């Protein structure tokens, strides 16, 4: 036996929203999400720059030149530029 009324059209007016969380702008939740995104990017940039520095050092050692003369790939240079700690 099916619920006969399930598909019947009904007029449902919008509910009263007083007292619910939806009246506020969700700054806290969105801010936390954005903080995680920024924090994750910071971690990736830090370790990426660390890896890039190592790679450039290794190439410089292999070529017998100083680190400043070793050329980095575009993404290695980009990560080192973006990281304030490297």
């Amino acid at each position: 036996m099916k619920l006969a009324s399930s598909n019947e059209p009904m007029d449902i007016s919008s509910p009263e929203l007083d007292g619910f969380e939806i009246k506020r702008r969700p700054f806290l939740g969105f801010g936390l999400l954005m903080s995680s995104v920024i924090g994750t990017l910071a971690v990736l940039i830090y370790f990426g720059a660390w890896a890039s520095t190592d790679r450039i050092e290794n190439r410089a050692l292999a070529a017998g030149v100083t680190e400043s003369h070793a050329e980095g790939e575009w993404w290695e240079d980009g990560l080192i530029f973006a990281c304030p700690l490297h």
Partner: protein
Amino acid sequence: MRNAALWFDKKLGLEEHSIAHYAWVIVGIAGVVQMVGAAIRMAFGVLIDPLVAAFGWTPGSIGLAYALMSIVTALSSPLAGYLGNRFGARKTMAAGTVLFFIGMMWTSQTKEIWELYVAYGIVFGVSQALLLVPVVPAVASWFRRHLGLGTGIMMVSWSLGPALVVQVLAVLFNTVGWSQAFMIVGIAGTATLAVILLFFRNTPEEAGKVAYGTYSSDKPLVTSGNIFVSTQQEFQGYVYKTNAFWNLINIHFLGCVGHAVILVGIIPLGISKGLGPLTAAGVLTTISIVSVITRLIAPILSERLSAKTVMFIAFFGQGVGVFLLLTANSTLDFYIFAVVWAIPYGGEGTAFPVVNRQYYGHSPMGTTYGWQLLGAGLGMALGGVLPGMVFDITGTYTWAIILSAAFSLAGAASIVLLDKSKRQLIPDWPVMETGAVSTDAAARSPVRSNQPGSNPVSGD
């Protein structure tokens, strides 16, 4: 004796429960869908060596297919959730089954690496979202109350599926080769999905039944028709405007990074500390088995106590527990870690359907859950690459362990900032005004029969 049994039933709240309800069929189907869908994904590790041997591709380039699949699944999840709400979980999962078949067959015939990326990374990735996202909200719609119990039983399959399929795939790879193994699993998986979807119903109303845990005083919920579609859009708008919606995506992301680092890194970490490959793999198996307990219990406790508290304990335990690995050097240390850490890890992600119900009532949760799985999927993808990346740079896994703890503890801190989970954040989802209202005495009596309109207080 009978009186004692009745006393226990009442004390434990068991008098409200019944095995003879179609909701348990839906839970069983959802468990099999999760098992078939997720297991191939979790078993990707066994695919790497055969592909290296067959084509000479590097493990890194093969691993990129897994990363691509994880990201595609994550990005498709909100859409899959929306499609589940809009067209029903059954149709959405049927589309996922077709893509599952195409993805598995194409993967089995792969000759070039780009084919692996398209077949496994994209086609199979989308199928994962279509299969795994809508099924959880559909199960939720079958439970007017006691969703924690239904969710817990369903979530057990997350652990059992991969454990089973990894063994099956390993045997098949050794006997018939990787290509035929994928074909066999693809055909068997598709056939299984096709058969069980015949018995799947999106809502109790569609099946002509009442939801599990329905009291005789409960009016039926609006679950179909034009009003359903427009009300759903309106209510989803309310959901977007709550802090909890955004924070839950954030929390799922942080928790998944935290445990993905460990799940991916524990075997190489164990081997680096002198464990044999089989012993190290046993640590991962132990984690899978022990976590079954909390996968089952966490949603039930979330419903009975407070989802926020249970989630906090799980995240905090997951974060603090990984520090055991910093001093783990022997086999015993690793197995102690596996048992201790698996308990909070098992409860980390399973309370989300319950907390959605507590915050958003009976509003369809497909889109909301899809967004949460977007966070989870991206977290799993990031957590999957971090251990290898950190090891390549530092030569140890210490920083990976610290990062895992940091992400989990950040998740725990974010949970503290959630609203109280006993408080509904948006208005009640509308009910049909045609439902019968009974007297107070009968109002809280569970409807023991599947069928609407049956005597509300009658036994089975």
